[in-house]
């Protein structure tokens, strides 16, 4: 057992604690340094994760497993956290509670990373709760803003409901198999197949994960919370925490409950179609950009769920690559929105809906870098070629057709064509609608975060080879022999 494999997590813990402690002793004016400190720690953790790429190991009596899949998702979470942390340097500026913000974000990400490497339902559940509990307070970070509090309340309530459902489901799994270890469950799954309780446990756990992934009908908190929370937190939730649900579902369904494959493929087929259609149709008429992004995020969750239905190595690779691309695209889009909100609020502190589409009017002139990045992100979300979104969609959709599920691919392609309408509307507002407002200077941290995300989106779009290869390696962990 090599403790170095836990070095990224340990680095993050140390960073979180350091930020918390140092924050106690320095005045508000110099709290900006905490953001830099956190960013440095995250970069170190990212570097440590990258250096340990390619190793495979199980640790602590097989409760943790380090493999290509967990490494891939750890990097996704760290990248999202990095983007969020850079942007938050500006967001938390002047706040008395900088240390709480950064340490909570870091702790939440530690939870996500442990979910990615969990090999035991107990680890998975506790880490899942860590990621949830830390973000409940983050969603309500603006505690004088009723929207933020409402977002936090809804997130918390539905979150604890689904934690209860998840735990109840796990208890049935434990009851039937007598173990919580993921490989051992797969070995003892006979009882789950022959008894009706298998389906009950399956659906209960799906409700728990579906809450994080935001699958219809477990999605209802998501639009409210993404809209009400601070934009950087929405980025963390939509880009990071959603992926945690996906990797947990990958592990639990594809590895542990592979014996119930027919059943959960059916569930995911239904939910994928309903979720992507619902997300896209409802997004059409939204005027709040963050809410629109939330519904688009539903749609994207629907696309990723197709990987469960197709279940070929290529489809899973596509789904995993989509998770990475979506991390960049969605985090970037929310951070760009955050920059706009910041600009609007710094001009008028009492703006009712700072993320309203009207505030994006003429953004191409007012904040050219933000507008250009936002354009790239929404086009990537829509799946325009040479962006990350296109590559992931291409692999995912063509693997769907290849395995004979033409109807599903047709629905998905129609959906993604439909989605262009509301994405293009944002671009229209930014570039084609006139404004008489002056150009404003763009806050540097936001700009850096946007630039990093743009590079990520375009890198996957222009040079997908290594990323696809990497995602396929990760997919091999799920189905070693291929199906």
């Amino acid at each position: 057992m090599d403790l170095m494999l836990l070095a990224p997590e340990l680095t993050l813990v140390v960073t979180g604690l350091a930020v918390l402690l140092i924050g106690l002793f320095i005045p508000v004016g110099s709290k900006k340094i905490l953001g830099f400190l956190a960013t440095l720690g995250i970069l170190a953790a990212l570097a440590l994760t990258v250096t340990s790429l390619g190793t495979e190991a199980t640790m602590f009596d097989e409760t943790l497993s380090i493999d290509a899949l967990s490494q891939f998702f750890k990097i996704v979470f760290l990248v999202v956290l990095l983007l969020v942390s850079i942007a938050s340097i500006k967001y938390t500026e002047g706040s008395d509670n900088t240390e709480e913000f950064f340490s909570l974000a870091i702790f939440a990400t530690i939870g996500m990373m442990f979910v990615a490497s969990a090999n035991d339902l107990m680890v998975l559940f506790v880490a899942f709760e860590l990621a949830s509990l830390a973000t409940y307070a983050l969603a309500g970070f603006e505690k004088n803003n009723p929207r933020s509090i409402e977002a936090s309340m809804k997130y918390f309530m539905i979150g604890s409901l689904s934690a209860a459902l998840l735990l109840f489901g796990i208890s049935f799994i434990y009851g039937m198999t007598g173990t919580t270890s993921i490989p051992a469950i797969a070995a003892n799954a006979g009882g789950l197949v022959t008894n009706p309780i298998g389906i009950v446990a399956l659906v209960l756990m799906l409700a728990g994960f579906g809450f994080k992934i935001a699958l219809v009908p477990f999605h209802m908190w998501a639009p409210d919370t993404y809209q009400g929370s601070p934009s950087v937190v929405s980025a963390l939730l939509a880009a990071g925490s959603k992926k945690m649900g996906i990797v947990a579902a990958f592990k639990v369904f594809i590895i542990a409950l592979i014996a119930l494959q027919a059943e959960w493929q059916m569930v995911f087929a239904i939910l994928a179609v309903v979720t992507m259609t619902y997300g896209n149709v409802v997004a059409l008429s939204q005027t709040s950009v963050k809410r629109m992004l939330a519904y688009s995020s539903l749609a994207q969750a629907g696309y990723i769920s197709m990987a469960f239905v197709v279940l070929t190595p290529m489809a899973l690779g596509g789904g995993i690559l989509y998770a990475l691309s979506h991390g960049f695209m969605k985090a970037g889009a929310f951070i760009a929105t955050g920059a706009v909100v910041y600009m609007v609020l710094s001009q008028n502190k009492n703006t009712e809906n700072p993320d309203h589409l009207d505030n994006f009017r003429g953004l191409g002139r007012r904040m050219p870098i933000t507008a250009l990045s936002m354009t790239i992100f929404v086009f990537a979300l829509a799946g325009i070629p040479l962006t990350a979104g296109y590559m992931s969609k291409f692999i995912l959709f063509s693997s769907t057709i290849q395995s004979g599920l033409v109807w599903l691919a047709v629905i998905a392609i129609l959906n993604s064509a439909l989605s262009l309408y509301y994405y293009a509307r944002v671009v229209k507002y930014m570039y084609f609608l006139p404004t008489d407002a002056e150009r404003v200077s763009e806050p540097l941290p936001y700009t850096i975060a946007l630039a990093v995300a743009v590079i990520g989106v375009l890198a996957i779009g222009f040079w997908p080879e290594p990323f696809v290869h990497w995602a396929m390696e990760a997919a091999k962990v799920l189905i070693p022999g291929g199906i």
Partner: protein
Amino acid sequence: MIPIELYVGLAVIIFTIGLYGFMTQRSGIRMLMSVELMLNSANLNLVAFSSYNADLTGQVFALYSIALAACEAAIGFAILMTIFRMRDTINLDSFNILRW
């Protein structure tokens, strides 16, 4: 020996009561109490299975989940306090600025 179905059935009933309370109560505190009911029914399940399988894992899990429930309650009450300060009520059904 008592059949295990009775323990599980009891847990299911308690869980449903919790669900019912969560779906119908307006007060935030009552909703939190309902969540505790659900979590504890899951714990009951875990412990029952643990002894009927002669395996301690379930009891360890139950311990952990009790700790988690405490954390959740702490955060929940803090959020409710903020709401109460802002609105002078903790009836959550009237708190819907964000919708549609």
